[in-house]
């Protein structure tokens, strides 16, 4: 069976002063799937994301996205290729309003915004779309608030709205639901399922019930290495996975 792989890595390795945070990871993400990257804290999941989006340079290994070797690209160029990430530490523009945060991403449609001589009134045409995205993540009552004043969970929601505003071909979400209440988790889960229709999603998530219901495929990472890979049923029965989770005390959810 020929698989349509959108993103793959070969021997991906990152060393920090001799310490191997990511070690020989071969990852294959199928186009159109929702792929989970799970593992105990410190397993190297965030480091993987940083490598994939070029915020860190790999010590060894290659990354291929859409048939193109992106191992040496710059982070802004990765986003321009349609591979967009969110951050584990909620990344918003704190002094800008919630709506403006989303609009910053929508501005990318104009290409580069080097036009310092034009009025920002030009951007009003993006407002309706920005507000629709704000609505989709349930932040409408807060849309004029500075993003810095939002609670942690709402910042995460805003970050997802901002990421979606780019309409990326592939999304990397680092613990998108961390710090959210039940209701918000449901909302974001529904949203992710909906937007996954035309895209590929690779996500780190500790909430295993979310992973079980949302994700087609799961890669388990421990100590920087791939421990197991498969669907939820297969992976959750794997004794090594159970041990890694219990052994490190890093597991969350209904395990």
């Amino acid at each position: 069976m020929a698989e349509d792989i959108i993103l793959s890595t070969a021997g991906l390795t990152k060393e920090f002063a001799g310490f191997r945070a990511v070690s020989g990871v071969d990852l294959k993400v199928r186009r159109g799937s929702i792929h989970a990257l799970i593992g105990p804290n410190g397993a190297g999941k965030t480091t993987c994301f940083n490598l994939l989006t070029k915020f860190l340079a790999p010590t060894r290994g290659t990354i291929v996205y859409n048939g193109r070797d992106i191992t040496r690209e710059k982070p802004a160029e990765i986003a321009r290729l349609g591979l967009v990430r969110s951050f584990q530490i909620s990344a918003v523009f704190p002094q800008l309003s919630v709506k403006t945060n989303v609009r910053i991403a929508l501005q990318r449609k104009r290409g580069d915004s080097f036009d310092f001589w034009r009025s920002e009134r030009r951007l009003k045409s993006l407002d309706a779309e920005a507000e629709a995205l704000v609505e989709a993540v349930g932040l409408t009552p807060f849309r004029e608030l500075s993003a810095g004043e939002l609670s942690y969970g709402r910042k995460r929601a805003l970050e997802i709205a901002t990421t979606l505003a780019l309409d990326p071909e592939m999304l990397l979400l680092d613990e998108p639901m961390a710090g959210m209440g039940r209701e918000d988790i449901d909302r974001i889960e529904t949203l992710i399922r909906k937007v996954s229709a035309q895209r590929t999603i690779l996500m780190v998530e500790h909430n295993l019930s979310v992973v079980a219901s949302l994700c087609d495929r799961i890669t388990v990472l421990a100590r920087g290495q791939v421990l197991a890979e498969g669907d939820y049923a297969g992976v959750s029965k794997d004794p090594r996975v159970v041990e890694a989770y219990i052994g490190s005390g890093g597991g969350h959810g209904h395990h």
Partner: protein
Amino acid sequence: MTDLATSEAPAGAALAETDDGTARLHRAILIGIAAALVVAPFVAYPVFVMKVLCFALFALAFNLLLGYGGLLSFGHAAYFGMASYVCAYTAKNWGLTPELAILLGTAVAAGLGTVFGALAIRRQGIYFAMITLALAQMVFFFSLQTPRFTGGEDGIQAVPRGKLLGLLDLTDDRALYWLVAAIFMAGLLAIYRIIHSPFGQICKAIRDNEPRAISLGYRANQYKLMVFVLSAALAGLAGATKAIVFQLASLTDVYWTMSGEVVLMTLVGGLGTVFGPIVGAIVMVTMQNYLATLGAWVTVIQGVIFVACVLLFREGIVGVIAKAIKKPL
């Protein structure tokens, strides 16, 4: 939940009002400033007002970089001072008309800003600041070592004010005042527009969170370089204008204390506020003028006021007012 693809959320009424309300307030303030400029030469010494305007423009340019680009330059005297030298030199030795001399000074500042900015933006935070300082010190030593161009310790004195466009004699303070007021107003409007442009939005985003802006596909360094060059050019415009006003360009203009003064003015007035630097410049220049008889004590008093400002209201004078009326100023 709203359908992402199809929903057309109506623009909230309350929201549109806030935006327009702020814009209206700003327009009113800009008109107020223009009116004040018309009245000022009749109630205060024109030379004093012109000095305030030159420094206010300098501080506005600096604030564009720090307050909206998030880039702290410790070397803005380089652009202010070099433009001042170029303007003075070309007006005196090449006989350029004042507007051409000022434009040339501004252009040289922009060129210097392009080179220095490109070197500095490779580093972040305090390293960025140190590089700008080091480069500015190079400009200072260059100025010191090339007396044929800068006049060395004496500076370039007796710079002719000349005739605007070769027609209008600027020897009279009142006549010159209108030119300086026009330059200031143009600079202020330009900076206001830059801050409120699509470009300004991305600058603010990069200031707030550079990695996030990059992850959205913005090539942050290009924006940082651009705002650096704009700031350097406007600082140069201020320095060149000052050379015509005082008919003098000197080492003081390129010395590091000048870089420090503009930081002070901006912080006292309100960093990251549109109008704060103007207030800061008024406060600092007024203080220097009226306390001039106290000699070296001026520096001490300035220091005390600065410390008091930072301790009492970190947002600066205009920042505090903006907070009180809950509107960005």
